[in-house]
Structures are given as C-alpha cells and as structure tokens.
C-alpha cells in the first residue's frame, strides 16, 4: 500500500542544513495498523507530513499504492490528499462554525459533491462513529471524544487509501482514549490502513506494528502486537 525508500529530508536552519530524515525506509501493507513512535525531534512529525503529502522530501521515493508522490504541485498535492489520505489530528481541527455533519462533509465539498448528497453521506459516516444524533451540533457543544469521532468520520468519508492519525488521543482522558483507539481498531478491521503517530506506548500497543524513529532514522523493528 505504502512504500518509502531512502527518504531524506533537510531543513535549512540559518546557514546550516538540518538533516531531519536519514534514509528512511518503510513499508506498510494494505490493511495494516502501524504506530510510529519517537521522541520529539526524532523526525516523526516530518515523516507524518511527508506521508500526508503536506510536505516535500529531498531524496528518495514515496509510493502510495501505485502513485509516486514526488515533486507535486500544490494543486495536485491537494487533490491527492483529498483522495488518498484521511487525517485525524491531536486537536481535532474541526471548523468551529460548522456543524458536525458539515465538518464531516467538508472533504466532499472539495470534490465538488453537491451539498445534499455530501451531507447525506456525512450523516452515514457520523452514524458509523455513533454520532448520528449529534449531526447538527457544533464542535463547541461536544466532548473531546465526540469531536475526535467526528474527525474520524471526516477522515473516512473520502474512502482514503490510508488514515493518518497524529497523536489522536493526545488531548483525551484515558477512558476516552481507549474508546477512540477501539474505534481505530474497528476501522482497521474493515480493511482500512491506519498509521498512528504517538508517543504513548499503550496507544502504540494497539497497533500491530510499531516503527520507532530516532534522530531521523528508523530503528530496527520491534514487533509488538496487540493481543
């Protein structure tokens, strides 16, 4: 599903060049649930941005399915993000002035799907995360767990190739975290490829595989399987 080979990424800091990712190789099979762990500064955010087609890389190859993600124009990158990737963020990033159903429907807006149709689809996805009754509520009226479930519905609505979750439980209490991780597990069981970025070991433990980054390098894999 996803293959990175010899990905290198530099940031210019003043006159220096910071080598953030060093020859990162990574392969994720379709239907896998993978956790990416690493201390801050390990390059995991950068890796996530590259995986999410939010940022470019300087050398190597990134294949997403049969699509080579390299040197894309902004428009093309936006199209690929819309079609291939579902994002879930730590701070949810719902638009506060839109209702739950409108938030979920937003990716379809950028596909040009007519309003009525996309709201209908959005309602189905809200139902899948158990929030059909909250369709017309704004994010401010919802709990953190509910917001994150809305965000997950939004990530799934375009039927992406992968779901990328950046510290999805970082802003949630432990009970809610568990529920959200449960939901990710369910999604994964339907065959969706899920990549979680986290620094919490018990979150990573839910994934079938954990990839550790240190100083921009992938550490030899330790296999950790959830039950």
């Amino acid at each position, binding site marked *: 599903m996803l293959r990175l080979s010899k990905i290198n990424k530099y940031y210019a800091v003043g006159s220096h060049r910071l080598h953030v990712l060093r020859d990162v190789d990574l392969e994720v099979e379709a239907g896998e649930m993978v956790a990416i762990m690493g201390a801050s500064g390990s390059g995991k955010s950068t890796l996530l941005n590259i995986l999410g087609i939010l940022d470019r890389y300087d050398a190597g190859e990134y294949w997403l399915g049969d699509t080579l993600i390299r040197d894309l124009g*902004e*428009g093309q990158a*936006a*199209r690929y993000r*819309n079609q291939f990737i579902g*994002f879930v963020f730590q701070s949810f*990033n719902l*638009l506060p002035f839109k209702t739950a159903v409108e938030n979920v429907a937003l990716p379809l807006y950028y596909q040009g799907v*007519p*309003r009525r149709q996309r709201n209908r689809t959005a309602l189905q996805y809200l139902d899948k995360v158990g929030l059909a009754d909250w369709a017309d509520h704004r994010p401010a009226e919802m709990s953190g767990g509910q917001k994150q479930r809305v965000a997950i519905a939004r990530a799934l609505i375009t039927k992406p190739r992968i779901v990328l979750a950046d510290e999805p439980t970082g802003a949630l209490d432990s009970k809610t975290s568990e529920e959200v991780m449960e939901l990710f597990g369910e999604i994964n069981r339907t065959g969706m490829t899920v990549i979680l970025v986290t620094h919490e070991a018990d979150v990573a433990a839910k994934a079938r595989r954990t990839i550790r980054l240190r100083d921009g390098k992938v550490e030899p894999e330790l296999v950790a399987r959830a039950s």
Partner: protein
Amino acid sequence: MIDVDSFHEIATSLTRHKLRTALTALGVFFGLTIFMLMVSFGGSLRSGISKKMSGFATNAVFLWGQRTSEPYAGLPANRPVVFDNDDIEPLRKLAGVEHVAPRNQLGGFRAGNVVKHGSKVGAFQVAGDYPDFQFISMPLIRAGRYINDADIADRRKVAVIGESVASELFGGADPIGQALEVNGIHFVVVGVFGTRATGQQGDQQVRTIHVPFTTFQQAFHTGNRVSWFALTGKRGVDAKELEQRVYALLRERHKVAPTDDAAIRGFNAGAQFAKTEKMFGAIDIVLGVFGLLSLLAGAIGVSNIMLISVRERTKEIGVRKALGARPAAVVGMVIAEAVMLTLVAGFIALAVGAFAISKAADRIATMGPDFPLGPPQVSFSFSVLATVILIAVGALAGLIPAVRAAAISPVEALRDE
C-alpha cells in the same frame, strides 16, 4: 463559480464577525455613495447650465448677412448682403444639413410689433417661419399645431403664438380659431407653444408669433428676402465643419470674397455646445476620479479586514488545505468574500444614494429656473457600471489577502502548540 453552496460558505464566514463586517461595509457604502453623489452632481451642474441654453437644437447654426468688408468680383466693399429664397434649396442640398429654416422677422431682430386682438394690444415679435423651424427652436406645442407645409404652399394667414402672447391677448380664453391683427393684417391662431428655455431667452421665445414664411413675405412685402437662416446638421456631423461649408456656399452665391469674415455672420450653437460639453466632460472626470478614490478608500478597508481575517483563519485554511482545498479554491474563497462584502455594501449604497438623489431632484425641481443646478439623476447605466466597478474593486481588494491565504502552509497551520 458561485452556487448556493459557496454562497452559504461566504455568508457563514462574513457573519462570524458581524460588527467588523458591518464597519468594513460602511467604508464601501460611503465610498460608493460619494462616488454616486459626485457623478450625479456633475450631471446636475450640466443640466443646470444647459437648461439655460436649451430651447434650441444643440447643433444649430444661425447665419445672417451684413456688409462686405472687401471688394470682390467687381463689386465694391460695404455692399449689403441679403439672403433670399433662392438660397433655400442649395442649403437644403448641402451635404450634412438636416433642417433648413429661413426666417424673417418683422421690424428686425427682437423688435416689438403692435399686435391686436379686439381691444387688447401687445408688443410682440412676429416671425415668418418654415415648419423646419420647430426642429431648431423646438417649441413645446401646448394646443393646436405648428406651421405645416400646406400653410407654406397656400400662404395661409395662420399664426402659432407663444404662451405669453396667448395670455396677454386672450386672457383665459382659448385662442385657437381666434383672430389677431398685425399691421392691419388678420391671422387665425392655429397653435400655442411653450418653451424649454428659461430666463430671458425663454421669455423672448414665448412672446413671439410665428406665421408661415410665404405668408409673411407676401403680407409684409419683404419680397424674397430672408432675414436669417437657422439650420442643423445631421447626427454626427461636426458643427464647425458644417458651418464652414455653409459659409462657403453663401459667400459664393452672394459674391462675397472667401476671406471676407464680416459679410456673413453666424452663431454656431453646436460649437458653443461642444465647448461647454468639453468643460463638463472635464468636470465629470474630476468628480468621477474623486468619487472613485473614495470608493478605493472603502476597498482598502475591505482589503485590510480580509488580511486580518486570513491571519485569524490560518488554522482553518490549513485544515481546508489538508482536507484537499486547492490553492485556487482558497483564493476563490477569499476573493468571493471580498466581492460579496463589497457588492452588498454597494447595493445598499446604490439604493440609499438613488433615494437621496431623487429627494434632491424633487427639491431642485421646485427651485425655479435661475437655480444653477438641474435635477440630479442616477441612470440605469450608472448602476450597471457601479456594479461592475464594485465587483472589480472587491476582487482587487481580495487579491492580496487571497494570495496570502493560498500561501499558508498546512504544516505550519496545523502545528499543535
């Protein structure tokens, strides 16, 4: 592409900061209102001046003969030049000429003649006219009719009288069919006219009695003489050029030296009109520029507020981009918001401005003929133009913020603090 959907998006984001949006809109509102008032003031000034000039076709040329100042073709200087009936046809055939109205005036230009009706007596101007004269002086027929071709052909003793003549000689009674007497000759009144001209010019016009040109020559024994000619050019014919051709023709016919400027004199209302037109054109430009500048000030306000709005919405725009908003979609969103804000404010300004201007017009209409301004008005074409300008101004105002919004990096925007 503006559909219900994007309209909804725009409305939502504009109404998020109601006070701020309203204040920004106020800037555009004042800008356009001032622009409107400026333009209509220009028009008002123009109509104020031209109502003093009106009552004559704006492209009319008037010509009369005087004395030659140099000998020519064996004829001495100081010879009077007298136009006659034989000049009429050649003038009519001259290229670019539309109407030719030869005219005779009893007792000369602006003379008073004793005119009687029963026991009433007044001093009025009496003129012999062709039907064509109504296209030059443009009398407003109040009752009856103007002189027609049959009057000319049959030398009918009919008269078309100005409003003042009617009121002074006939009081409140209907003058049509009544007789009046000029120099012992009786004419039957067939029409009464008023005028658009104001002031002395207008007073003069409605104190005039028009009789058929042919009747005049016969009744008052003026032979085939013509006191003066009034003529107009066809549409688009340059007044100055037409005048030159007419001069050339008349000089040749009356054996006047081509260089003799004194022998045939004229007044070119068209050239005069063109001159004032030019002045008003300049005034219009100045007023229009000031108006546009004030609109621009409003637009800068819009631009400013959109810049702030884009900054505040960095995160939102980052989310949208992460979810698949292409840069073009982001640019479109910001520009559409700016245009919508400008248009709504502008339409309110158009409505309020049109109302104010129509009130002012009502007021000015009651001011009497000597008030220097005419009733201002807002034309439909101005409204269309204003709408186009508003869209352009709004788009321009949104451009910089839009480009800035499109440049927002989703990575930066989504970074959690």
